């Protein structure tokens, strides 16, 4: 007898990695004929942690109009030994004073795990209202925290409870960017185009992360600055790559064949939002791997993913990680571990430049057209 709970579809679960078919990263490994063992190990490790955290969050599944969302390495499927759990208690419905107590209970449940808690900025391990995420896009009300939560919802988030609330909020955020901000020019001319509003916020977020890195280095007197520096060069940059590719994909792979002939403009735009939703549910490495498979040669894939693999290997190495935590700015220049990671980040950068500028005419056109001015 089949249990209906088993009837979930593989392609819909690609975001969570629960499907049976190969995901784009694994497919790329097979196509290129090269393994990236640290990335694979991190993805494998994520499955175990994800299952454990879902079980811990099980009791919170029944709270209506809410969900628990995880960000960071867990959502990117890049879990390493030093990873912490960045989570938010997402409320998409009627405000209820009881939510405050539930937030405490969730924090308590996570504190009883062996995993490190998130940083102390208050961006994570807290309640997040969908109202702010959906309505406060830009303008005075859009705080640094709100911007971070909103963009990370699109770039690296996974649900630890039933996914319906999480996915509903993501779709509504995308609605704000894509459907509520139609292009001035005619839809008939070029219906599937790069969504500029979304792209601008992706760029803003990337630059904000870079500025905040310098601010934290200054304010926190260089505490943990090396790890932030390296993450900015690698995993944070990868997030920006995903943001760019999500936007560029609207022109690179338009979902034109999904619609009936002569579909109304509003349906065309909705299809574009649906497409972006699907891309948002892919991990940054999976989306990058998909683009590498379709728009680059094997050498470029190797040039990008090999340094990223080495980066994850360093993060997973407890000794190196602890060493980097304590390293001062003045000592860094002569430090072997830091210099090894710097070189890795330079190779990663060169690989990305090759992908965006030298591999595919259309990708280059989009990068030049939308990437700077």
């Amino acid at each position, binding site marked *: 007898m089949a249990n209906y709970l088993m009837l979930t579809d593989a392609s819909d679960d690609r975001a969570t990695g629960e499907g049976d078919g190969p995901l784009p990263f694994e497919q790329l490994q097979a196509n290129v004929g090269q393994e990236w063992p640290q990335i694979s190990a991190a993805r494998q490790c994520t499955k175990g942690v994800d299952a454990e955290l879902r079980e811990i969050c099980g009791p919170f599944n029944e709270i209506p109009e809410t969900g628990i969302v995880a960000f960071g390495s867990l959502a990117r499927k890049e879990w390493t030994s030093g990873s912490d759990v960045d989570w938010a208690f997402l409320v998409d419905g009627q405000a209820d004073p009881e939510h405050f107590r539930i937030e405490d209970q969730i924090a308590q449940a996570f504190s009883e795990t062996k995993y490190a808690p998130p940083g102390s900025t208050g961006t994570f391990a807290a309640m997040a209202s969908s109202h702010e995420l959906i309505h406060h896009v830009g303008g005075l009300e859009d705080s640094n925290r709100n911007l971070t939560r909103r963009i990370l919802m699109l770039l690296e988030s996974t649900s630890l409870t039933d996914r*319906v609330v999480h996915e509903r909020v993501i779709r509504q955020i*995308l609605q704000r960017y894509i459907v509520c901000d139609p292009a001035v020019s005619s839809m008939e001319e070029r219906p599937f185009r790069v969504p500029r509003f979304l792209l601008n916020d992706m760029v803003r977020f990337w630059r904000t992360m870079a500025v905040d890195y310098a601010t934290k280095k200054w304010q926190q007197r260089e505490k943990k600055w090396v790890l932030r520096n390296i993450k900015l060069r690698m995993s944070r940059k990868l997030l920006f790559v995903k943001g760019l590719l999500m936007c560029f994909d609207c022109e690179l792979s338009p979902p034109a064949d999904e619609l009936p002939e002569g579909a109304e403009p509003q*349906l065309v735009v909705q299809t574009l939002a649906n497409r972006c939703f699907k891309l948002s549910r892919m991990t940054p490495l999976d989306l990058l791997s998909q683009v590498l498979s379709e728009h680059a040669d094997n050498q470029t894939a190797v040039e990008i993913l090999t340094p990223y693999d080495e980066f994850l290997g360093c993060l997973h190495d407890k000794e190196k990680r602890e060493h980097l935590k304590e390293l001062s700015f003045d000592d860094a220049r002569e430090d072997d571990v830091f210099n090894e990671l710097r070189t890795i980040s330079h190779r990663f950068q060169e690989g990305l430049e090759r992908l965006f500028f030298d591999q595919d005419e259309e990708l280059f056109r989009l990068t030049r057209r939308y990437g700077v001015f």
Partner: protein
Amino acid sequence: MRPIGFSTGALAKGDYQEGLRLQLEVGVSAVELSALRENEVEILVAALSDLDLSELQYVSFHAPSKLSEMSEDHLLGCLNEVARREIPIVVHPDIIQNPDTWRSLGRWLLIENMDQRKPVGRTAGELRPFFNLLPEARFCFDIGHARQVDPTMGVAVEMLIEFRDRLAEIHLSEVRSDSRHVAIGETAAAAYRHVASLIPETTPVILESMVAPEQIRHELEVAQSCLSLCQQDRDGHLAVS
């Protein structure tokens, strides 16, 4: 014109005779006979031969939403009798435990998309495995459920595109966050108009709005306006087919 009418359950819960009488009075062209609770199934199936449904263009049957006492096999025994009469049967996917046995209903089985409370069948991705296992089954699209799951109607568009060849019936009402089916409000109506062009003009519509008898006619007019298929008359009223 598109066949349109109410679910008997929306108008009179388990009293199918009253639910039928109330809407035949206003001249609907479609009806869904509702047996949402398992103890209503056998009674309704036994009554099918005595019901005068000759004036209607479309009739469907809604199977129970939950099984507590009745076995899946026993339910299927009842539903096979409905299918034998060539009446489409709307089924919630979460009661399908053994898909093989449901194949006997063939094209008369209509699988409905679910509201946010159910763990399955809410999106195209969650419905796909059911249709893969039941290739003859068709699709009952509950537009209110789809909007509750996703107010942007992105989920609705995905389902209407992916299952367009299976689309056999529309369920129409507004579904509140507590999953209660109520009269269609203006915001919901606007959302439904957004996807109306993806719904063929011949697909039957069954209203599930729980309204009082005196609101039946008005709700039918609102429903028609949602799907943009009729003209307003000089007084601004919408014609009910």
